[in-house]
């Protein structure tokens, strides 16, 4: 079958001038310029995070001769200060790629082991949501960006490995999100509470204290309760809003809301 297709696009350009001299001239100019100073940064030997690039901010012949201190904003491999981590789970909750697992690290008491994030960099998208969420500032992103490794298993960084990165004192991402002032807090639905202590036990910041409350006056004809009732009281300024108490509450009596 011979298709009936009209041939197009063979017109002569109008006012095509200058032949090929202009591009030749431009290329020659660039040649002369880059003979003196090519704009390459010779990567493994020169890095933008080197001190010499941090002094000032300037561009010369297409090459940054300084990128300034803002290089610290880079979102690279995480550094984790295991000592200040409170095992609040917020990083794992906020991870859109589900690449953070909370693993046990030595240092906790046997009943409530200390858990710190372990990050699988094979999945991580470096969005920084976890470090934004970290209430203690212990999980932070550094300027480190070289991760290549021959084994996939080595892409999983344990808390200890991230602690080593922390100890190397790399520049940390200085951007911290401000906690909104009028944030919701955790409220208690009093009639439902059974005083089981689960929230106070699992609270990472220990901001929940169980206080004794007298059982409300018995109705006529009823015996006074023998048992001492307890009720959680949440110290709102210490609370990091991690929601651990909500998820452990067996009666679902804790909820988000605003103090009235």
């Amino acid at each position, binding site marked *: 079958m*011979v298709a009936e297709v009209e*041939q197009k696009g063979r017109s002569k350009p109008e006012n095509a001038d200058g032949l090929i001299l202009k591009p030749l001239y431009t290329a020659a100019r660039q040649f002369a310029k880059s003979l003196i100073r090519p704009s390459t940064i010779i990567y493994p030997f020169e890095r933008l995070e080197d001190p010499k690039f941090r002094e000032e901010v300037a561009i010369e012949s297409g090459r940054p001769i300084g990128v300034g201190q803002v290089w610290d904003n880079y979102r690279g491999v995480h550094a984790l200060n295991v000592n200040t981590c409170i095992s609040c789970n917020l990083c794992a909750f906020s991870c859109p790629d589900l690449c953070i697992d909370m693993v046990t690290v030595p240092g906790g008491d046997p009943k409530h082991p200390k858990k710190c994030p372990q990050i699988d960099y094979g999945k991580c998208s470096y969005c920084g949501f976890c470090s934004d*969420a970290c209430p203690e500032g212990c999980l932070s992103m550094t300027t480190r960006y070289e991760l290549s490794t021959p084994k996939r298993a080595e892409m999983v960084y344990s808390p200890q490995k991230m602690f080593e990165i922390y100890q190397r004192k790399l520049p940390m991402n200085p951007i911290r999100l401000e906690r909104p002032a009028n944030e919701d807090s955790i409220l208690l639905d009093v009639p439902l509470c059974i005083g089981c202590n689960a929230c106070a036990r699992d609270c990472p910041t220990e901001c929940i204290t169980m206080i004794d409350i007298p059982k409300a006056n018995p109705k006529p004809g009823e015996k006074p309760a023998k048992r001492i009732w307890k009720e959680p009281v949440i110290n709102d300024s210490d609370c990091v809003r991690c929601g651990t108490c909500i998820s452990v509450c067996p009666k679902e009596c804790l909820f*988000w809301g605003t103090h009235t």
Partner: protein
Amino acid sequence: MSEMWVNMGPQHPMTHGLWNLRVRIDGEMIVEVDPEMGYLHRGIEKISEDRHYNEVITLMDRTCYVAGMAWEHLYVMGAEKALGIVPPERAEWIRMLSEEFQRLASHIMWYAAFVQDLGLMSPFLYGMRDRDLILDLFQSYTGGRLTYEYMRVGGVRNDLPEGFPAQARQVLDWLEPRLVEYDRLCMGSEIFRRRCDGLGVLKANDCVRLGVTGPMLRSAGSKRDIRKDRPYSRYSQVEFDVATADSSDVTGRYLVRMEEMRQSIRILRQALDWLEHHPGPVLADRLPRWLGAPYAPMGREGYLLKRNYPKGVGLSAIEEPHGEACAYVVNEGGEHPYRVKFRSPVFANLSACSHYLVGYHIADIPPIMGSVDVCVGEVDR
């Protein structure tokens, strides 16, 4: 054997991504084309149904990997309308600044790839070099060079760092003469003109009929630009012209994009002036619980909140570097959007490809497809 099918792609220097252009050629002339998409389909619209409103932003950067900011802006505006949130003034300006920088970076990237397709090798490196400076700027305030994750529903993540306007002005001062240099290498070269003139012609009425937008439409003489026609962000407060050409061919698209870069620089200077003198908050005050950074478990009461929160539908449209992009966000009152639908400009531009490819030679495919500026990430989504 006078005719044969040639698979151009999925691994082909012309495709700029993963797609397959099946071409039936007669000698060297194209008789029929059949694009085959889907090699990069990641189901972003489906994944979005399963993510928090803010987490979708991480996907937006990957929708079009050379125009991440524009897509973030698009989505964030749509989600804000669906949720009924108004971002602060400064955040709007920062978003506009970011989008224009992204347009500049995207067009430079387009220039680099386009001339590379023509066999012109050195401008590719020049383009990459100059785009890198813009990426440095992005990195200085977002922390990422390609995937920024910067905008949030209700504002932006953080304010610009100190000294940013000065650094940005340096970059703009460096870029402006470079645009002249780019022009000299291309429009000053007769070979380039002969390769590009009269190729891929798609007249304005055909463009409208086929849904083609962006520089392709404007190169046919139309002045449609969402930034002017339906101003969003703060585009109504800056001065700029809509770049047009009337040749509706590859050269016209080249000229339109070059002029758009100049206009972007003009917008950027105005935005930098404004941002220098107007400090303020960059994130809206009262956000729903699940829009804050930590996504803590909601508990039983979370579902109550969900019920109480207003439902809504948000429609946003921006002039993305490639053309008109729309987002349609359906909020059914929950942590996740119920449905997100994106209108990708390249999707529509590419769907018309049989109209501007048939009849040309196989050697004309790279310049024509280069002038369309295909970004497969946003076609397949």
